[in-house]
């Protein structure tokens, strides 16, 4: 019983790690929190579930979800770079608008996958949760390989430089606006993919499925950084995955302590808040070596 709880937390950690990796592109590389996340995540769920229910294969449905997420990122990117809307506000606008888009796609607030194929059925014979674990690992491996491949192209380097020193990037002839739009598109495509994976695990898509997901994504990212400190790019993505699993285990621990799951969101917020403050706490207490190398801005 306890083992299966752990396995389920690991399974959740793996598929939610996809969200963390999507957020990494904006929050860490481009250096802004993108609130489109809370719209593109349920959008991915809605598109994938609607497509599956209409008879499209799970893999193709997830592809459609990615495209939809990229579209959402494109709108945020255009508002931000061309419309000069502050990026936080641009994200909020798109997130809010997507609520209606999701209702339009599903034609109802909640759509079930009952009796329909899911991506996890590839590993049907396995015991509970192992199907999710394996699917999650395969998706993450593919995602990380693709992303690293992208980062080490000329375009990818221009993208990273844009986040690192925008003024310098522009002075070297890098089209920084295009890079930001590209980053928002890829990020939200990945986040929608995460939405499609989570919806298939839950067995339904909900129009409100995005509330609070940015906290979960950022938590996995920050936990990874707090634990491992300064890493290379590829290792950083791995750290996000480990951070995401640890976060789910932490939540499991909180629930095992007997705390009421009705109030789960505040546990999430508290966990993230503590993780975000760790570098600060460490600095004021001078605990440098106790917790690890720490986060390098």
């Amino acid at each position, binding site marked *: 019983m306890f083992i299966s709880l752990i396995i389920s937390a690991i399974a959740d950690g793996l598929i939610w790690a996809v969200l963390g990796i999507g957020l990494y592109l904006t929050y860490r590389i481009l250096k802004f929190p993108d609130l489109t996340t809370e719209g593109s995540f349920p959008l991915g769920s809605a598109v994938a579930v609607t497509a599956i229910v209409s008879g499209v294969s799970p893999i193709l449905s997830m592809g459609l979800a990615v495209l939809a997420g990229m579209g959402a990122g494109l709108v945020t990117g255009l508002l931000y770079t061309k419309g000069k809307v502050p990026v936080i506000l641009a994200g909020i606008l798109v997130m809010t608008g997507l609520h209606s888009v999701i209702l339009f796609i599903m034609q109802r607030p909640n759509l079930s996958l009952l009796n329909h194929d899911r991506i996890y059925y590839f590993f049907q014979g396995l015991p509970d949760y192992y199907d999710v674990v394996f699917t999650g690992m395969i998706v993450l491996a593919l995602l990380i390989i693709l992303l690293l491949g992208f980062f*080490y192209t*000329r*375009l990818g380097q221009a993208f990273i*430089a844009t986040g690192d*020193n925008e003024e*310098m990037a*522009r002075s*070297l*002839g890098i089209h920084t606006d295009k890079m930001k739009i590209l980053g928002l598109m890829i990020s939200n495509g990945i986040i929608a993919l995460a939405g499609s994976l989570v919806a298939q695990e839950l067995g339904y898509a909900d129009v409100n499925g995005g509330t609070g997901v940015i906290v979960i994504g950022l938590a996995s990212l920050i936990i990874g950084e707090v634990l491992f400190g300064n890493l290379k790019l590829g290792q950083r993505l791995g750290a996000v995955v480990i951070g995401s699993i640890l976060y789910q285990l932490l939540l499991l621990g909180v629930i095992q302590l007997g705390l009421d799951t009705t109030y789960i969101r505040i546990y999430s917020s508290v966990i993230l808040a503590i993780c975000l403050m760790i570098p600060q706490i460490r600095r004021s207490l001078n605990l440098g070596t106790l917790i690890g190398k720490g986060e390098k801005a």
Partner: protein
Amino acid sequence: MSALLELKQLTKIISNQADEDNKILDSVDFTLNEGEFVTVLGGNGAGKSTLFNSITGSTETTGGTVQLNGKNITNWKEEKRAGYISRVFQDPKMGTAPRMTVAENLFLAQLRGKKKTLKPRGLKKQKAGYQELCASIGNGLERHIDTPAGQLSGGQRQSLSLLMATMSRPELLLLDEHTAALDPKTSKRLMQLTDELIKEQRLTCMMITHQMEDALVYGNRLIVMKDGEITLDLNQQEKDQMTLKDLLKLFEEDKLTPTI
């Protein structure tokens, strides 16, 4: 000698809160010939940096035109102009990407003005060349080829910026007090390196400086700016005859009082 850069009636007006117009650049006419190395002097607020920003396109001008190689580039964006014009900033932090390594920074500079495609970067093949390039500076930068630029000393970082600005031979190099933030010794070395690079590659260059001595020693033309106008323009001969004393006197009479 042909004209590389032509500024015609270049004007930049900023309206302040009281709705008073402030002319940062006042109908500047200026022609820069190929191979010239112009030092630019002027007090604070004379419009030197705005002049540079107008040339690179990082600030929008109110009026006038900018021509590069006979082409009107007034409406070109900064990113497009960057293919031809490179720049070194005063702040060592501004010219390099802090989390990217020295080699990665150099690679980005090498792509200046080129299309950023999905071609793999192939950094390993370039490293030997980069190492050689860095070794030519003589401040140990070649030992830090895989170090993030943010961890370099100010002098190393600024010499990296200079290499990045010159490695793909820009048509025009703009130096905006690029040695001002460094200690005197490092500053002097970087200035000598700059001069060598410019001579070696026969670069066309404009250099803002607050060091009157540098303005006289380096370059083959000198201009002085005041209140958004070019008030003095000395060619090589006139510049050679000018002494530091003359220049100081000129500034005193003109009440230009630049910070030395």
